[in-house]
């Protein structure tokens, strides 16, 4: 029987929520790693029993974990993330040079085909790869040492590499996004990188054609159209149809085009989801209404999805990795809030219900479709 497993990272531990294909009744497991900040958990598409988890602490640094049995048991794996070669500097908030310093792993992206291969996006921004199931990590240093690297600056949340997309049609093509450097593409398996930020406009950058410096919050792709990407930028929802060579804005009628996550429907490549947030200084939904917005036209025309979501006095945020979709026949959409709720829709967003209401602040939500 098919079903789903929802991996939830929170500020005080990880939770695993499971259900069958109806997605009405849920079993909640956790907290795993109680008391620890769990930045991100993600399962291998090639082996759903293989799950990787990033655990971070302001006191004790970064630790990494792996499960080989769908999250029932965990083993600690390698946590040594050493930058390769000359460390160099990026720009600090005040514009002065600042040496790269590893702080934490923001995002894990398991290989589409090999359960032992996984990528890690880290702060300060760099991309690492493990081919031994997380035991050891090697930096793909061509990204950090790109000629623009010394001009990258941290966003408010730090200089983090938070988005990694592996092209299912081309194993040599990888996209990443960094706050606040922008989006980058590699066409040689991560050895060399090209900034792909043309068409992005950021109010805080005087040079409107700046190659880097854009605060990209999240990017998403439908696997059937790997040249089309959707982006939630600091402000603006953007789209490219040529692998990032040129972006155009598709914010359309959104009540605010500020936000963090963006996702694409599992079966409809032109159906896109965002969660508008009021502004960069007020990180909560406009008008106290928690609304997911769905476009069925690839952007520009958006409809509010509200059925089952709080429509008054709601002031939570939804972080960039805290939204995900399943690929069951009726596509499920999931998101977690900084207020500790995880909401699920089993009908592409038409209706919603909370799976849990009172977890610690949710940092990440990833869904595994089990068949």
């Amino acid at each position, binding site marked *: 029987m098919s079903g789903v497993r929802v991996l939830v990272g929170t500020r005080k531990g990880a939770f695993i929520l499971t259900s069958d294909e109806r997605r009405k009744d849920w079993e909640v497991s956790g907290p795993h790693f109680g008391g620890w900040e769990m930045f991100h958990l993600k399962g291998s598409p090639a082996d759903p029993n293989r799950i990787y988890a990033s655990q971070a602490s302001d006191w004790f640094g970064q630790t990494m974990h792996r499960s080989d049995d769908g999250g029932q048991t965990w083993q600690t794996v390698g946590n*040594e993330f*050493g930058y390769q070669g000359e460390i160099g500097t990026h720009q600090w908030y005040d514009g002065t040079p600042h040496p790269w310093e590893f702080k934490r792993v923001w995002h894990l992206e398991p290989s589409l085909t090999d359960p032992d291969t996984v990528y890690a996006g880290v702060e300060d921004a760099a991309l690492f790869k493990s081919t031994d199931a997380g035991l050891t990590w090697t930096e793909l240093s061509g990204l950090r040492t790109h000629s623009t690297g010394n001009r990258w600056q941290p966003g408010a949340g730090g200089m983090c590499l938070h988005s990694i997309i592996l092209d299912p049609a081309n194993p040599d093509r990888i996209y990443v996004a960094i706050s606040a450097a922008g989006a980058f593409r590699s066409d040689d398996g991560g050895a060399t990188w090209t900034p792909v930020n043309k068409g992005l406009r950021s109010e805080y950058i005087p040079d409107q054609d700046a190659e880097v410096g854009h605060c990209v919050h999240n990017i998403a792709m439908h696997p059937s159209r790997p040249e089309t990407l959707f982006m939630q930028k600091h402000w603006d929802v953007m789209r490219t149809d040529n692998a990032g060579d040129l972006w155009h804005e598709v914010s359309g009628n959104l009540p605010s085009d500020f936000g963090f996550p963006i996702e694409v429907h599992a079966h409809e490549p032109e159906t896109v989801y965002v969660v508008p947030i009021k502004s960069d200084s007020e990180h909560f939904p406009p008008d106290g209404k928690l609304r997911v917005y769905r476009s069925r036209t690839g952007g520009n025309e958006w409809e509010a999805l509200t059925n089952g979501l709080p429509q008054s006095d709601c002031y939570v945020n939804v972080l960039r990795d805290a939204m995900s979709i399943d690929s069951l026949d009726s596509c499920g959409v999931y998101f977690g809030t900084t207020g500790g709720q995880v909401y699920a829709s089993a009908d592409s967003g038409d209706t919603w219900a909370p799976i849990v209401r009172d977890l610690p602040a949710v940092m990440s939500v990833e869904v595994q479709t089990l068949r």
Partner: protein
Amino acid sequence: MIRVILPPHLRTLARTGKEVELDLDSDAPVTPGAVLDALEGMYPTLRGTIRDHQTKQRRPMVRFFVCERDISHDSPDTPLPDVIASGREPFWILGAISGGQA
């Protein structure tokens, strides 16, 4: 035999109790660095959580106490008192009461 007291989060990570016992090389001086080498040898999951993998620098919000004294800023090669070396008093590792988010 050296006794080491771990902070709660590291007990969880190492899957052990509050206090662990370590056997150090009897010929070498008992120093904070030697205690941490032995601790990480017995519990590899603690590598990188107390001090940096490469530089061996103590993480900023971790503190070491012996005989009610904060020795966090002492050299890791400073010999520890006999009461620590003999196991009569423990070597404390603490997470500072500071920083972080609720």
